[in-house]
């Protein structure tokens, strides 16, 4: 039924711009990349620190600022791999900036969310902002993080660019705030290639007291 072809395509294009609020779209000059050295560095709003095992690249948007508590890194560019840090997202806040009037909205974080609810929030993020048409939770299990009882989520998703990506998120809610380190990469080759980096970064994570 043709009623929507054009509407849908235009809507998707508009979404792209909105979604770019969170990405360093490098080749368009909207973002800056910064070198991350191999030593302890503060991430997000600086309440979390980690040590990367080799140099990574931090990317930040210039025209649209990301939420303060979230920071993105990449090794081979955001299409292929990336690590996102969520450093103490407070209840009632969102992982990304979004228009209150957008039809589709990434749910807000609430302090009393259980791990399955956090997983659902992440899944909606991928479906709404990442254009995932398929998202599979591979496993959700308890895992210690930042010295407390947290969780580990493993997942994979098929995006509208026809590429399967795979991810792992390790997180915990501490004093009602969400701390999360999330790794997402092309499923073939890239995921396995930088997974040890991710694990080393997660292992090095410390809260700033």
């Amino acid at each position, binding site marked *: *039924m*043709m*009623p*929507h*072809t*054009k*509407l*849908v*395509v*235009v809507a*998707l*294009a508009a*979404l*792209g*711009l909105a*979604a*770019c609020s*969170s*990405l360093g*779209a*490098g080749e*368009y000059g909207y973002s800056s990349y910064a070198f991350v050295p191999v030593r302890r560095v503060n991430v997000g709003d600086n309440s979390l620190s980690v040590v990367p095992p080799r140099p990574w690249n931090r990317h930040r948007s210039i025209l649209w600022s990301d939420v303060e508590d*979230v920071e993105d890194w990449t090794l081979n560019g*955001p*299409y*292929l791999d990336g690590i*996102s840090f969520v450093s103490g997202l407070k209840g009632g806040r969102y992982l*990304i900036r979004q228009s*209150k*009037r957008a*039809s*589709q*909205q*990434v*749910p807000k974080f*609430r302090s*009393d969310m*259980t*791990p*399955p609810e956090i997983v*659902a929030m992440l*899944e*909606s993020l991928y*479906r*709404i902002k*990442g254009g995932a*048409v398929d998202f*599979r*939770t591979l*496993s*959700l*299990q*308890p895992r210690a993080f930042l010295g407390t009882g947290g*969780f580990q989520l493993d997942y994979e998703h098929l*995006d*509208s*660019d*026809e590429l*399967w*990506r795979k991810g792992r998120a390790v997180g915990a809610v501490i004093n009602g705030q969400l701390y999360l380190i999330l790794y997402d990469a092309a499923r073939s080759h890239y995921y396995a290639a930088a997974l040890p980096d991710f694990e080393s970064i997660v292992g090095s994570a410390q809260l700033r007291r």
Partner: protein
Amino acid sequence: MSCPKCVALSRRSLLVGGGVAAASLTIGMAEARVLPKDMVPLVGPGYRPTEKDEQGIWQLMDRAEEEISGSNLLIQDPKLTGYLRDLIGKVGGPAARDFRIYLAHIPDFNAMMFPTGFAVVFSGLLLRMRNEAQLAGVIAHESGHFLRRHMIRSWRDERRKTDIFAVAAMAAGVGGAAGGVYLGDYVQLAQLGTILSLFQYSRAMEAEADAIGAKNLAAAGYQPMEMSTIWEQLIGEEDASARYRRKHRRRGSLFDTHPSDQSRMVDLRADAAEVTEAGKTYEIGRERYLSMIAPIRSMLLDDQVKLNDPGASQYLIETLAKDGWNGQLRFYEGEVWRLRNRHGDDARAALSYAAAVAYPDAPADAWRWHGISLMKAGRTAEAKSAFTRYLTMKPDAADAAWVRQAIG
């Protein structure tokens, strides 16, 4: 958070910009209702183009089809794709045997016909159809575009009027798709959608497709009135979605090539009345349709509900529930509230989950969320038994380790 596809989508917006600009110059004609009886097919079985420009388009579209048919966004289930093929075989008029039809896993209400006679149906369409007559109606409408040669007619029309826009956009779109040029990580199917937007249908053409569609639908023995019901459902969904976000649904804008909603619905009803023969019975095919999509219905509901568009999702679920509530629909009703996540929504969700698990067809996930709701409400013992039920139904659940920990 990282979003790998933003760059590509920006590129797409450039392409779409060209297409829309081209289209905007061709609309605005006054219209009288197109009568189904006047709608004779302009192509016969085994149609092949004889003129140069159309042959060129067919060549490009053959490449496009090659790419689409190999896309991993397609749902390949032979039962479902065979079902779609059977339907287009029934309502496709003289070209019925020539059509190809693909099912794409994309949660939008959409279907499209390409100039060479292959159609792409989005999975979101299957979620929204309540019976076989509705699905057949959409397919009949799309087939109508091919039978009336709308793509080549609109292409010729536009090229005359908007040479620059159309040719530039066409070169950008088709160059990427057919030449194998890497235009960023950009969904191939949607890219072809962009190309399609160059073949804008005028309001008159939409009316023609409705009219010939109604005729072919009724000839195949389906209730033609269902076509106007689809339209009603679509308008209802868009209104509901907009209302939630305090917006107005776009209507009758300059770029809207479709007949205004009300007049189209009225025309579709008139079409249906015209093609209905007294004394003949027309089928709806609800049972057959529901059993056909049963294996993927929860996936379709997942795809929709997790987009967190509560107005649209709630409207859809209530529309589907007109044919009867069940555990699956109650569960997804709860999911809509939970994801909406406004004050009091957790209690609403909890009620839906509790209602869902009372049905014999309650999905395992309903028991899990029922358990989580109970746990958060401090009803630990009941939560444990709900979790246990969940694990019994789904012993290899991906989150079994977490659930076992929650049981303690």
